[in-house]
């Protein structure tokens, strides 16, 4: 929460809405008066009309949204589960990490979008190639946060475990794992956004469904209001995903 809750005597939320409305009005006027060609910037009323029509009348946007969401969640689930498992494997067996790390570092350094043509070839135009791209981003993010988290164990806690006579299994389960949770969570939050990024990027390149595909189609046919409506939807989607993750995190990490 922001500390100063007023701007020029107005509540912050009111000031925000006023600023947004003013910006929209200027945009609308600029387009209506032809100061800038509306073909390029669209107009807010048209964007909102497209947005609501797509969501509630034709439901076209809803269908695309569901495809994108399904791809994102699948990529996120697969990427985070394998990321955490491989991360824990690395922590438990440092030799495995030493062996694989340079290979993973190379893969992770690769601009992931460059893999898109390969994934299309392997997995086809459908949702699988999008999941693969999202996975390739989420996996490495969650993996490195898991390793970093498990390494950040407080040395006092290890000494305590030592003097208590804890077994290595007990140390892993009761100390290493819970110590890693906060760092893993920040990795998961980032991983979710990157899963969305991977899926959208995949859809933009070649797809049959999804908000990314809809974006290229609308831009290609000069439906600029549609493009902005999809961008608005994507921003709202990204914000909701982050919000959900933060809520889950706050619930699970009440002790912080």
């Amino acid at each position, binding site marked *: 929460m922001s500390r100063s809750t007023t701007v020029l005597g107005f509540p912050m939320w009111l000031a925000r809405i006023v600023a947004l409305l003013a910006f929209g009005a200027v945009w609308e006027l600029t387009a209506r008066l032809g100061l800038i060609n509306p073909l390029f910037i669209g107009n807010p009323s048209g964007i909102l009309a497209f947005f609501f029509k797509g969501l509630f009348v034709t439901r076209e946007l809803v269908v695309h949204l569901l495809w994108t969401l399904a791809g994102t969640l699948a990529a996120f689930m697969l990427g985070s589960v394998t990321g955490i498992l491989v991360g824990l494997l690395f922590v438990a067996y440092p030799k495995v990490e030493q062996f694989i790390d340079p290979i993973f570092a190379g893969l992770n350094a690769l601009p992931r979008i460059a893999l898109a043509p390969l994934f299309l070839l392997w997995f086809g135009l459908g949702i699988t190639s999008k999941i693969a791209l999202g996975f390739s981003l989420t996996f490495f993010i969650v993996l490195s946060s898991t390793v970093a988290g498990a390494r950040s164990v407080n040395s*006092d806690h290890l000494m*305590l475990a030592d*003097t208590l*006579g804890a077994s290595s299994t*007990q140390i892993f389960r009761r*100390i290493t794992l819970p110590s890693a*949770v906060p760092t893993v969570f920040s990795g998961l939050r980032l991983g979710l956004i990157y899963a969305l990024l991977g899926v959208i990027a995949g859809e933009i390149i070649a797809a049959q469904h999804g908000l990314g595909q809809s974006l290229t189609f609308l831009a290609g046919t000069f439906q600029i209001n549609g493009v902005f409506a999809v961008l608005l939807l994507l921003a709202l989607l990204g914000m909701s995903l982050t919000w959900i993750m933060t809520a889950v995190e706050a619930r699970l*990490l009440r*002790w912080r």
Partner: protein
Amino acid sequence: MEQRIPATSVVHAAGAIDIRDVVHRFSGEVLAVSHATLHVAPGEFVSIVGPSGCGKTTLLNLLAGLLPVQEGSISVAGAAPRAGRHDVAYMLARDSLLPWLNALQNARFGAEIRNIPAQRRNARARELLTQVGLGSFEHAYPKALSQGMRQRVALARTFCLDSPILLMDEPFGALDAQTKLQLEEVLLALWTSERRTVVFITHDLSEAVALSDRVIVMSARPGTIIADIKVDLPRPRSVRALQRDARYHDIYAMIWSKLELALEGT
């Protein structure tokens, strides 16, 4: 090197500690402890004081099995020191509470690690939290507790282990004077009701005199034992009441004169 005593003689009450001619060097060169010999009887409360860097913590860590014995011999309840022995509990100046566990879960954590049955450790942890004055804070997480309260939880965790031997490394060293006084009272009350063997490291002489049966003075590095003084103040004691006790001040002054000798070496 280590004397082995048959397991049958290691009964619960056997909390004797025997240190004989122990020498300890760091990295094979820096002499930290030089020819220390000390016997602690079962149920005795012994404090070790000395200038900082005198090797008192090294000596304690040798007893705890956190450092290997290089020269001389150490026997803790008839066996060689080993980290994680169930008849030894160790307590540090830093509370080292697990932030994701609440006060009750932290208090019973050690007992849980040592597989003390759930029902017993729960009842014991509750009872101890009440004894250290945190009965109504069972569900509070460490972040919500003050430093003094966290150290109380650590004290409860240590006592919940039911180990006949307690090794304490400046457990109240990080606390303000008032909180320290309160926790000394709590420790005295706990110890008086159970009489475990305690080796207590501190740099605070008044604390050592108020709590102990004997105060050991170590010299500056290389640390060696230069005085072993009996504190024959009657028990049960109250740390507060002792502040007005003439004999307490006499003993304090006497040990202080020895400690001054130790400090001259620094």
